Structures are given as C-alpha cells and as structure tokens.
C-alpha cells in the first residue's frame, strides 16, 4: 500500500560492486518480479529495500518519504524467505502470532484481535487445520504458506518475497503461483518477488524487472518485456527455449537490407529492414526465436547456417536442439523429430522476420529512427 522509489542506489561488498546507481519506480499495489540470473544483485536489492542491509549511496522512498534510516520494522515490510526461516520452537499459530507480539507492537492489538487476525490469515492461506502443528510436522508447501502468512499478518505496507516457491516441486510451484496472485489481490500489498524462474516472473508480474550484473536492463509490464526486449540480454534471457543471439553485420545487397553472418546473407524485411537501413555497415546482434529456425535435409540447397549439435532433448512431443554455429549458440525447437546425436553436422534455415536487432557493442535495441 505504498509507492516505492529507488534512486541512485549503490552497494558494494569489499571490492565487488553489486550495483551502481540503480533507479526503480514501483507504483502502489503493484506485483513486481525481480528476475535475473544468480548473482545479479536481485536478492541484495530486496534486502536493502527491507532494511536488513543498507546501501552505500542512493536512497529509497516509501510514498516519497526517505526510509534509509528506518529499521525493517519501522519501514513496515513483511518478508518471506527462500528457506522459509520459520521459528522451529513454535507451533504454526505461534509463528503467526510472533510478529504481532513484538515488543514494539505492544498494545496495538488485543488478544482477541490477534486471534481474529490469525484466523483470517489462516483462512486465506488455507492452513487453519495446521495451526497447532509444529513446524517440522509440515510439508514444504505447508511451510511456505506459513512463512507467507507470517509475513502478511501485520498487513505490512510492502511484501518482499525472496524466491518463495523455489524449493517446491513443479506441480506445487505452479499451484502457488495463482495462490500468490489471489492473496495479492485480496491484500493489495505492494509486492516485490525475487525469482530466477522466467515463467514464474512472466506469469505473475505486473511490473517485470530484469536485472543483470547489478543493472536493470528493463523494467516494464511482463508482456512488453517479453515482446519488446530493450537489450539483447533480455531477449536471450526470456523465452523457452530462449532466443538465439547471432552476431551479424548489417548491410545491403542490391538495395535490400541484409544481415551477414559467416558470409551468408539473411534478408531483413519489413520493420527489421527499416531498422537495418538506419544503421548500415554496423556490427549488430540479431535475436531470433527458436521457431525461426528449421532444420534442413541432408544437402538441401539454400540452408544458411551450418552448425554442430551440442545438445538435444525431447520436451512435450517436440524436439529441442542446441547448435554451435561457429561459436554462437542457436536454439532450435521443432515438432518434426529427427534422429541426431551430439557432434552431428546440421544445416538450418533461418527466417529473420520475427527477429530483433541490437547494437553490437552495447546490446541496446536498435530502432528505425
């Protein structure tokens, strides 16, 4: 129930710069997902927002009010930890009651109100039958609910979730996704959810923040990030299988824009052509979705890329192949299954119309103007 403004945030551990001058704006009641590979600084960012860690420079504002010098409790944040971090010496009810009994909350709630609140949260999370169990009598999914309940019981202004469903099995993880959204809709708490699972992030986020090496590559609604990535990293990070990045040189052949890769030319048509025309002769990165590639028969003419099979697997009736095309990784996804072994030579067609172009040096998206 609060707007969060982060500006110029910097943090380093010793000589390692975690991030340098980070900015982020989160509107009230937004469900934010921080997505990025391990070590990108997403957990550190969340710990700084919570107040468990402090930044070296920059500031964090809740509703325009600087919270840098406030403790976690004064900031009124709730946090669910990756390993749940429940109090093992208390029952489920004891765990839920613990935040309400904090000395700084003394006198804020009567015993009756506490009971009412515990009942309400237990109902919401469907853990009422578990209230009198001890923590080690719970399954992982149940512990996760209790941990979530504990973070919500004070109705905090900001809810921080650090990889809350990572340890659950796939089926439960899927179920918890919609649960989390349902709870968010009821509680209307501004929520920041850290994850490295792109499906989870894409499915849940109102605002998807992609982090890499301490920088925010893109912060936008999930579908926008997916469909319109701002950098080549974002383009290659999302998608299952992820988009392939090819280093190309933009040019022109008899008036038509092309991308040259290993001496082969890919025609760039439509919008992509306009983008290429705006930056002729440039080194660029062409991001292509897996469906843009089709494997060619043995010596079928016209096939453009020549690669070696590095890995292959079957997923839900379709075949995925990872090709090494002179040092560049190409992901192939096809429902036409063919027999391959690692090390095989494979030629593929590439269809560039669904591609995106990024600047070679910076990885930033190229546009027509």
């Amino acid at each position, binding site marked *: 129930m609060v707007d969060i403004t982060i500006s110029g945030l910097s943090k380093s551990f010793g000589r390692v710069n975690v991030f340098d001058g980070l900015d982020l704006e989160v509107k009230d009641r937004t469900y934010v997902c921080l997505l990025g590979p391990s070590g990108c600084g997403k957990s550190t960012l969340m710990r700084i927002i919570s107040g*468990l860690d402090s930044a070296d420079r920059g500031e964090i504002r809740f509703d325009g009010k600087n919270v840098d010098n406030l403790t976690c*409790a004064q900031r009124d944040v709730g946090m669910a930890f990756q*390993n749940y971090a429940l109090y*093992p010496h208390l029952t489920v009810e004891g765990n839920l009651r613990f935040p309400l009994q*904090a000395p700084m909350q003394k006198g804020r709630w009567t015993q009756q109100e506490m009971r009412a609140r515990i009942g309400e949260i237990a109902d919401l999370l469907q853990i009422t039958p578990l209230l009198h169990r001890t923590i080690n009598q719970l399954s992982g999914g149940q512990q996760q609910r209790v941990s979530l309940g504990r973070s919500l019981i004070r109705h905090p202004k900001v809810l921080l979730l650090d990889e809350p469903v990572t340890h659950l099995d796939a089926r439960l993880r899927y179920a918890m996704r919609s649960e989390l959204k349902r709870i968010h809709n009821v509680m209307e708490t501004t929520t920041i959810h850290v994850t490295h699972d792109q499906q989870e992030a894409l499915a849940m986020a109102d605002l998807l923040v992609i982090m890499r090496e301490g920088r925010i590559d893109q912060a936008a609604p999930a579908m926008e990030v997916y469909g319109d990535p701002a950098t080549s990293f974002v383009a290659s990070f999302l998608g299952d299988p992820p988009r392939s990045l090819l280093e190309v040189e933009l040019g022109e052949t008899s008036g038509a824009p092309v991308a040259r890769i290993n001496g082969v030319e890919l025609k760039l048509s439509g919008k992509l052509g306009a983008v290429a025309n705006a930056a002729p002769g440039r080194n660029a990165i062409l991001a292509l979705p897996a469906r843009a590639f089709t494997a060619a028969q043995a010596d079928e003419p016209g096939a453009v890329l020549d690669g070696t099979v590095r890995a292959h697997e079957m997923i839900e009736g379709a075949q995925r192949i990872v090709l090494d095309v002179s040092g560049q990784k190409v992901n192939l996804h096809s429902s036409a299954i063919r027999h391959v072994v690692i090390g095989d030579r494979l030629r593929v067609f590439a269809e560039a119309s669904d591609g995106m172009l990024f600047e070679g040096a910076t990885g930033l998206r190229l546009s027509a103007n």
Partner: protein
Amino acid sequence: MTSVDFDAGAEATPRSSKVVLGFSDYARYLIAVVFVGFSLFPFYIVLSTSLKSESDIFAWPPVWLFDVTWDNYFSALFVFGGTGVLPFLINSLIITALSTLLAVGLGSMVAYGLTRFRVVGGSHIFFFILSTRFAPPVAFVVPIFLMIREAGLLDTHLALILIYTSMNLSLVVWIIRGFFEAIPIEIEEAAQIDGYSRLQIFRKVALPLVKPGLITTSILSAILSWNEFLIATVMTQNTAATLPVYLAGFSGSMGLEWGPFMAVGAMAVLPIMIFTLVLQRHLVRGLTFGAVR
C-alpha cells in the same frame, strides 16, 4: 488446497522379530560389560560400604550379603564433626547452582556475540577464550589465591562462584558457539523484520533454539563445579567449604571413619545425578531440523 503428505506406513517392510546374535556381538557385549563393571565398581564399593556396619566394612573376605544399616548416614548428617555434612552440602549447592547459571548465561551471550556480530579478531578471541584452560589448574592456584586474599574474599561463596564461572565459561562458549552457528541466519532476520531487537531475538529466538546446547553445558558446568577440589580446598576453610573439601577432611589424625565417609560420598553423587537425569529429559535433538530446507 495442495499439500504433500507421506504415507508413513507404506514404506515399512515386515521384519523378523528374531535378532540373531553372532560371535562378534557377544564379544562386543562382553567388552561393554567388563568396561561398565570396571567403571561402576568403585561406586558399588562406596554405596555398599556406606550401608555396612563397621565390622562388615573390615571383614575379610569381604561380605557380599550384609545387614543394611543407616547409621553411617545418620552420623554423617547429624553427629560427625558436630555440624554434619549439611552446611557443606548447602555450600556446594549454592556455589554450583550460581556458577553454572552465570557460566551458561554469560557464556551463551559471549558465543552469540562472537558468532553473530563482526568482531575484530573474532576467531582469535575464541581461541584465546579456550586457551585459559590450557594450563593445569594447579599452576593458577597461587596467583588466584593471592588475588582472592587481596580482595578479601577468602572462604566466601563469591570467591568460588567467580572462579568456577570463569573456568566453565570457556567450555560453555566453545560448545554453544557451534549451536548458534547452526541456526540459519534467516530465522533471526525474520524476527528482525517482525520488529524484535537484537536482545529480544537472542532471548526469544536464539536461546530457545540452542536449548540442547544450554542443557549440555549446564550439566558439564555443574559436574565440574560440584566435584572441583583443588581450588575449593585452597580458597575455603569452613564457611564456604564444599563437599569435596569436607570429604577430604575425613582423613584426619584420628584415622578414617570409613562408614560415614562413604555415606557422604554417596550423598555427594545424588544431587548432581538427579540434576543430570532431570535435564537430560529435555535434551531434544534436532530441534532446528525441518525449519529450513
């Protein structure tokens, strides 16, 4: 609602209730029996002698079956030395209880501080704390005696309480440290988020989680304080003398009164045994198990 439940019964496989013992099992039991017998035999002598009459005590060959008499306990408690064993028993109880309480209380705070806060030279401090136990106590007796005398604490409870506390502190710190290190830091961070201060976290989260450690160190500290003789005999004569000092006093110029001596010995074992048995029941292992995945 989704939940994962294990069917505990499904995995149980039928097992024959007959356990077949092999030769090596017998050998192992034999070794165990011999060892236990060897350890407990002195205690048997103490107990049986304390229940024998004087003629039975000195009978040769030893009498295995004898008429039980409580005379030795009576004289130990009420007759022997005029005052009997009671004041010394009380001294021992006071000194053991307070020094154990202090050692475990202070020691757990030290261990917590050193594991949870960044302290300059933290690991060196741990080593330094243990190093106070490297030298044999007899090497310290004279300097400590001088300190205690200058402080005017000779023959006081306080003197022994302070000395025993400092002796047991290192033990407590070392053992409890491992227990604190095993607590996932996130549990305490969760309490921090919930609005608890460091001291409150220590009391309400950390201490309950290291309960097995607290119990273990309490038992060890109590046994060490209860049985300590060397320092007690140097620092105290009368008012604050503990049971071991009193026991040693039996071998006076008048010859040894074996019966009452053994009766006091048997009584000296009892309190610490009860203490250990009671506390041991609360030693729940693996309390933190399942809290964190």
